């Protein structure tokens, strides 16, 4: 085969489909007019996998953008914010205070303050679920957190595991790619089975991936393998939660909160139903950050007065 024909073959090969790629999302509350606001604050959550920018106008959620984090944290922060600003015609100069959070919080070039994602998720969950939220489970892209908070969303206990992919979004992306099924379909398909299978390894995603391949070869359907992985993930995060205990008022944040396959299995293991919210669960950290900014600005205004 000539070099030219090889090049031509490569050029015409279909691009590899990225099954792990989840839906990016931008939203603005068009019933509100930000131009008449007294205080506009912004929270930027730069995570290892996803980045969110949230705008809060006079203490209320106004808009957000959720997108995949690139290989550069400052650019990810800028792009996330630009996405939501473009949606509503806002400029950075219109925003009174910006709080950065997440792994890349110190790399948000326009942030006034950095606050950890632990505190921000608690604050965001308190807004989304109400003041009865007491236990928060955040399943992020590359870490998993269990948090207790009080009625004001102040953290009273927390525990985070960021060493291992098991129980994180990254693990789910690996399975999505392995099964060649879009990540958004994994949860619903995990229920389309005859009987609930045993979990695959909940210790390590590498082991879980090997086991998943073995199960396929043994005759398991893809749906059954996905169910086994969802169960493993649920068991993993429940063990994390049980280390600090689960109080009534259970709320799940992060991208995996949108995966019913994992959420329903967690609820079954705990015997507690997770609180529901109409707000995208993935923005909890950035929302909490923006609300922290609002509180800080109010305090400054009170001091100035």
């Amino acid at each position, binding site marked *: 085969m000539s070099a030219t024909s090889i090049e031509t073959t490569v050029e015409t090969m279909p691009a590899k489909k990225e099954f792990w790629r989840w839906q990016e999302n931008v939203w603005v509350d068009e019933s509100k007019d930000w131009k008449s606001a007294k205080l506009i604050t912004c929270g930027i959550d730069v995570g290892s996998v996803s980045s969110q920018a949230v705008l809060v106008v006079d203490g209320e959620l106004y808009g957000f953008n959720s997108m995949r984090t690139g290989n550069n944290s400052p650019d990810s922060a800028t792009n996330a914010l630009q996405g939501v600003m473009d949606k509503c015609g806002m400029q950075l100069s219109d925003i009174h205070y910006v709080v950065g959070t997440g792994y890349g919080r110190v790399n948000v070039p326009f942030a006034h303050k950095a606050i950890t994602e632990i505190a921000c998720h608690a604050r965001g969950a308190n807004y989304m679920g109400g003041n009865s939220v007491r236990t928060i489970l955040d399943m992020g892209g590359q870490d998993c957190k269990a948090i207790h908070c009080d009625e004001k969303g102040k953290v*009273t206990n*927390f525990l985070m595991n*960021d060493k*291992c992919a098991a129980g994180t979004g990254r693990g789910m992306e690996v399975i999505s790619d392995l099964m060649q099924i879009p990540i958004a379909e994994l949860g619903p398909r995990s229920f389309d089975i005859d009987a609930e299978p045993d979990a695959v390894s909940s210790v390590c995603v590498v082991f879980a991936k090997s086991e998943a391949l073995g199960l396929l070869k043994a005759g398991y359907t893809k749906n059954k393998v996905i169910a086994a992985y969802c169960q493993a993930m649920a068991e993993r995060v429940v063990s994390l939660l049980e280390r*600090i205990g689960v109080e009534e008022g259970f709320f799940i944040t992060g991208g995996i909160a949108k995966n019913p396959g994992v959420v329903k299995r967690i609820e079954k293991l705990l015997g507690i139903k997770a609180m529901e919210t109409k707000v995208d669960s993935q923005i909890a950290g950035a929302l909490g950050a923006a609300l922290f900014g609002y509180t800080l600005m109010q305090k400054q205004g009170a001091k100035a007065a």
Partner: protein
Amino acid sequence: MIANYGYKDGSGEYYISIDTDKCIDCAAGRACLEACPKQMFEVIADDYDDQVVWVKKPNCRTLAYDCSACKPAAGYASLPCTLACTPGAIKHSW
């Protein structure tokens, strides 16, 4: 607030818990900072602007190895950090 630093992996669970309510007005003069041979603790301002001790980030993922030199297998009857912390804020999970 109880702050847990550490991880769970295939070999087990390793967490150091710090009760920040006992840590804020430390009656032991932050003795834990010097007591730890690996100097794993440092004082920070937390998210609520309280001065508390935490486990340094790089050490959070290597606790099993870093703390092994202070465990009973290394000849210690008690952990130097928990002994130094007379308010009882520091605890080990393993």
